[in-house]
């Protein structure tokens, strides 16, 4: 019998499409079933059931009953932003270790409740991040080596090469709102919210400091879909950390053909003795040949931005070959969480970190709406 039973919350058209198989691949874990709240919209229910079927696990229609099962030790929560932290807190309250998608939710109050409930229940938590990637580990090793001297600045770029670009009306300059009006949409995402979470998390992890002030500008540069939903497709931020370090980030979704791989993911480390750029696409093979180059086909009508693996495959997939990464990370983010449970230690991206990142993201929206630097202290 496997050591840890894993309950999945949320199905297709969420990152559960990735995390569920990651847990299934870990020899210590067994998927017990997939569940969700009673009364979710019928489309969501159908997507939940389709992932359960594809993974060969039962769909458990009663969430409360699923959480009462003694063979469930870990809950993997990938429901929509608006109910994510609340549902994660229910899982923690039931005594389950909680692995949660990023960002941790859209309500700071709910995220803070998750933190307190998890502490009281003495369960482990982890929010998905890029910290397990080979390039993030290289950046961490570089910082820890002292080679760069005292770390003065961290500058991240997280620009996903997805979507058919060029449809935004550049004459319509974005006016941001605070608080943000809605987070979940079928054809768009708030890209500051969904890409900024990676960069802010990585900066805090690398420097061990907390954000004190933030300035942000959000934009609509690329997609009509984002403009129609009144959400940004790009953002630029400057961050002040409490130890004096300066951070900046660019984040967004900038088009399928904007990068030879999945997008520009990199961090620039500025130290008192040196500066280094650590890029996810290095080291790499560069391939030039007479094979036809890939062009994006007709976008999936329900997922034109290629958010999800299932719909991207249905639309023909992405088949770039010009660059090929060399090397791989040691293991999945899910397996790292299981390591933490095994060793009875906190994750380096736990619910407390997730809530702190959410606080910075919400302050960034406030800044983008006001045009002013926003203090978090």
């Amino acid at each position, binding site marked *: 019998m496997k050591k840890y039973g894993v309950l999945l919350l949320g199905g297709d058209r969420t990152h559960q499409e990735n995390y569920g198989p990651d847990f299934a691949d870990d020899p210590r874990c067994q998927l017990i079933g997939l569940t969700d709240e009673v009364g979710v919209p019928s489309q969501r229910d159908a997507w939940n059931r389709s992932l359960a079927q594809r993974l060969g696990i039962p769909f458990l229609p009663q969430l409360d009953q699923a959480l009462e099962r003694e063979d469930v030790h870990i809950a993997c929560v990938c429901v929509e932003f608006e109910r994510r932290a609340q549902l994660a807190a229910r899982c923690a309250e039931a005594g389950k270790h909680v692995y949660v998608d990023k960002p941790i939710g859209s309500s700071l109050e709910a995220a803070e409740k998750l933190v307190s409930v998890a502490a009281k229940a003495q369960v482990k938590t982890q929010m998905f991040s890029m910290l397990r990637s080979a390039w993030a580990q290289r950046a961490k090793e570089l910082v820890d080596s002292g080679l760069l001297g005292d770390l003065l600045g961290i500058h991240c770029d997280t620009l996903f090469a997805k979507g058919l670009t060029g449809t935004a009306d*550049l004459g319509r300059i974005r006016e941001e709102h605070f608080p943000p009006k809605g987070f979940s949409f079928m054809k768009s995402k708030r890209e500051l919210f969904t890409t900024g979470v990676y960069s802010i998390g990585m900066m805090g992890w690398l420097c061990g400091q907390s954000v004190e002030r933030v300035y942000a500008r959000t*934009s609509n540069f690329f997609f009509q879909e984002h403009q129609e939903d009144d959400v940004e497709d790009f953002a630029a931020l400057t961050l002040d950390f409490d130890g004096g370090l300066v951070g900046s980030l660019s984040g967004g979704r900038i088009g399928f053909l904007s990068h030879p791989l999945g997008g*520009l993911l990199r961090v620039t480390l500025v130290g*008192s*003795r040196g500066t280094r750029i650590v890029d996810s696409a290095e080291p790499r093979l560069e391939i030039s040949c007479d094979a036809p180059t890939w062009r994006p086909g007709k976008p999936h009508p329900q997922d034109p931005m290629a958010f999800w693996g299932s719909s991207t495959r249905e639309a023909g997939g992405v088949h770039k070959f010009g660059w090929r990464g060399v090397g791989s990370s040691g293991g999945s983010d899910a397996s790292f969480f299981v390591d933490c449970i095994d060793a009875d230690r906190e994750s380096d991206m736990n619910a407390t970190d997730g809530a702190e990142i959410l606080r910075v993201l919400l302050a960034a929206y406030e800044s983008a709406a006001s045009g002013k*630097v926003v203090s978090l202290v």
Partner: protein
Amino acid sequence: MIDLTPLKTAVFQEVSSGRLGEPVFARLILVISSDHGHLLPLCQQALGFIQELLQFPAEAVLTRGSQESGSLTVQLDLEGGRSALAVVAIRREEEPQLDLLLVGNHGTLRYRNDGPLLEAELDAGSEIKVTESTASATGLRQALQESLRSGERVRL
């Protein structure tokens, strides 16, 4: 100072091809040794270069860092909703580096140079080569200094 004319020429040729669409965002990382200039004028020059690439006037700046630390970070807001981020550093013991990312609404352009060519560009740039008007250059420098002093975003 650094002579950015060859890079500027090449980038403008690419932008004018239309393949990238309209430039909307730029990220510049520039590290040079102390033999080649001072931090604030270097930063000013870098921002002038970015303004030319994005083809919109600057609206406001937010500046972080200090002369003492040898590095400045600037968020530049331009009219038309465009924006840019620049990191400029002077390091005595480090090889020079110039990394440019230009994002258009149809594609991106990247330039990276940390080799001998950049050394040549640095040597060639012994005289200041800034193409913007003296008035706007002065205004930009004052805004950079004011933002450093106040910690706030400063409108131009």
